[in-house]
């Protein structure tokens, strides 16, 4: 007896296939089996479990290409299991996790460990990202090929920039061997000068060390030049300034293999959030100014910025409930990314398929993973989104082990109602409500 799931009554939004229409979706044995007019699949679906998607969007399972799952090494902040649970609660069926664990994911053994833990958790697909350099130290190239065999989908020293231009050049060149992107955290350390927030009038008023926009932009300009030199593939993590968006726009116009992502906190918060020395507004790159937020949204709208990614970065309260200078950088975001992305549609005139693309096929293609579409025969990852559900985000109820969100108490409109991973319901709002 095949295992069948029918997602019925919703509007399928599948940007990769240009579908945006009322459709039923039949999943059989963990694969997408058929897409049909409403009611047309009833005969095939005899005996299937039915997910009622009335009033909902049915999208390919969402892909978060930038998360920190903290395991191994920092399990007190997050584990692969808790991170995966937060992911599916937020509508994500796939996450790509950064290499800054302890030990660093700079060799195949760590990659395999991460994949083992993800299989044991069995909640969402986890795609590890390997380090560019051994120990993230920016000196010696990590065993990228060995890690590739073990299952990494990209390389990145995220958390740190690759300051040595020679090493960055080699990374871009070498990663071509595996057709992988180098994901860059763009920060000129000399310019950032141990800053703790955006440099500008607010940093001056608060007496906090600033990181100028130029610290990010100078590095992006360098890396674009290196893409021209090497023919490598560059993906720029968490773009945060208007100038960065413009640099990426120009690079794309010249036909270079440069892509970019934006994080929800950079799309919805400005440096004003630091007021009162709120350490949940401390992240790297820092929150910028209103015109940067607007440029980022515009870049996302016109496709300059390809993807939305959470940069989910869990930290323990003891690492955040301290003096601002001493607090760790980063915020959690797996459960707030989708509702904030929906806000772009509700309040900022974004086309629905543009937003869905930025959370599905766009990041999947950058990572080269067979996800982000509802094409027949692909792994049946599906997110059922109720776009109109009004709710309040309470960080105390987060599935993550950490609580460092700047969005606690925000009124949200829209959320995942049901998250289906490989043909099985991994999370559903109804079950969650019943358990409460």
């Amino acid at each position: 007896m095949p295992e069948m799931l029918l997602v019925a009554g919703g509007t399928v939004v599948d940007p990769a296939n240009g579908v945006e229409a009322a459709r039923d979706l039949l999943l059989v044995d963990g694969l997408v089996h058929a897409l049909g007019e409403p009611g047309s699949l009833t005969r095939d679906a005899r005996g299937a479990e039915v997910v009622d998607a009335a009033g909902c969007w049915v999208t390919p399972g969402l892909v978060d290409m930038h998360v920190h799952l903290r395991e191994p090494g920092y399990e007190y902040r997050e584990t692969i299991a808790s991170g995966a649970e937060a992911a599916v609660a937020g509508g994500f069926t796939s996450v790509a996790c950064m290499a800054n664990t302890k030990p660093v994911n700079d060799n195949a053994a760590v990659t395999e460990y991460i994949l083992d833990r993800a299989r044991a958790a069995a909640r969402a697909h986890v795609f590890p990202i390997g380090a560019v350099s051994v120990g993230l130290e920016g000196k010696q190239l990590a065993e990228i090929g060995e890690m590739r065999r073990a299952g990494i989908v990209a390389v990145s020293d995220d958390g740190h920039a690759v300051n040595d231009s020679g090493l960055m050049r080699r990374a871009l060149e070498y990663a071509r061997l595996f057709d992988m992107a180098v994901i860059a955290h763009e920060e000129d350390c000399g310019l950032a000068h141990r800053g703790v927030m955006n440099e500008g009038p607010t940093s001056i008023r608060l007496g906090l060390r600033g990181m100028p926009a130029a610290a990010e932009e100078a590095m992006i300009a360098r890396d674009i030049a290196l893409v021209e030199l090497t023919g490598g593939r560059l993906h720029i993590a968490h773009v945060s300034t208007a100038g960065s968006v413009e640099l990426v726009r120009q690079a794309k116009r010249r036909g270079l293999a440069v892509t970019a992502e934006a994080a929800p906190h950079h799309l919805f918060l400005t440096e004003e959030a630091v007021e009162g020395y709120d350490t949940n507004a401390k992240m790297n790159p820092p929150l910028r100014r209103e015109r940067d937020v607007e440029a980022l949204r515009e870049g996302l709208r016109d496709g300059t910025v390809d993807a939305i990614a959470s940069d989910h970065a869990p930290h323990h309260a003891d690492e955040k409930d301290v003096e601002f200078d001493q607090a760790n950088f980063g915020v959690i975001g797996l459960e707030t990314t989708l509702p904030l992305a929906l806000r772009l549609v509700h309040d900022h005139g974004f086309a629905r398929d543009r937003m869905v693309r930025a959370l599905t096929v766009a990041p999947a293609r950058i990572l080269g993973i067979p996800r982000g579409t509802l094409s027949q025969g692909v792994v049946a990852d599906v997110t059922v989104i109720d776009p109109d559900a009004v709710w309040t985000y309470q960080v105390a109820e987060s599935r993550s082990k950490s609580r460092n969100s700047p969005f606690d108490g925000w009124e949200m409109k829209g959320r995942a109602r049901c998250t289906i991973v490989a043909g099985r319901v991994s999370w559903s709002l109804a079950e969650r409500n019943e358990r409460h």
Partner: protein
Amino acid sequence: MEFRGQHLLGLEGLSAGELNFLIDTAASFKEISDRDIKKVPTLRGKTVVSLFYEASTRTRTSFEIAAKRMSADFISIASSTSSASKGETLLDTARNIAAMRPDAIILRHSCSGAPHFLARRVDCSIINAGDGSHEHPTQALLDLLTVRERKGRIDGLNVAIVGDVLHSRVARSNLLALRALGANVRLIGPPTLVPHDFGRWGEVCHDLRHGVRDADVIMMLRIQRERMTGNFFPTLDEYSAYFCLTRSVLEEARKDVIILHPGPMNRGVEIASDVADGGAAVILDQVTNGVAVRMAVLYLLVNAPREELEVPAATVETAPAVARPRRKAAHA
């Protein structure tokens, strides 16, 4: 007018009325320090703890003398001798001190916002004695008191602040308060230490002679040697060639200009010795006024919540100047 509030975290946001009230109150306390017996019982039974995470002689001593002249019990903790050196967090240290029920904690810390962080988490008054590059409110208040004594007003004065404005908490508190009180503020130094973003708070000027022209008041800031490592300027010698306040520069200012410096001074670096020791300098007046300002701040914050409208008779006898009725509060 009155000063409401449990803490003194900074001068940002205080109105001219509130600032003047603080300065008036401080002025009324000066007389106590001139007495033969320099002690009033106003804060008898109150406990004040100073918690300093940075070296300080002047500020800490000034607070201690202020507290003791008001008869408060004063306990001084320096980070080098405290459990901070054993790795205890600021929050844990402060919570432990707060659990001993002091009336105020005076905090000096190298992190901007540290007193704001504590004020949200402990329930005694927090007095900011300097936080990172952010604010140093009592220093600015004693500067303002000194200026007002000498000039009779603050409104309309031309005030030049010279030096490392970027890293200076003294500059920030002063410029916020001076603006609120109607002074014209000029900020002078190299672009590395006075970036253009300061333009919204004052006139930015990179030429010392031009900057002090027609100044009624010059506030010098201390240049810290460690700034050289950040390449904010090449050497102290070169810095002083451009920004040292000398007699010759002083001729550009008004004849009756006064010169302030928060100390400690680097003689021959930011200020020439003959200027520092000359008639225009009011640097020791500042130190004297510091005690009065800190008495006033302790009085207003520590004494305020439980005070009746009328100042107790004992206080009136010995400290007539403080008998300013302020608010009616129920006896606790």
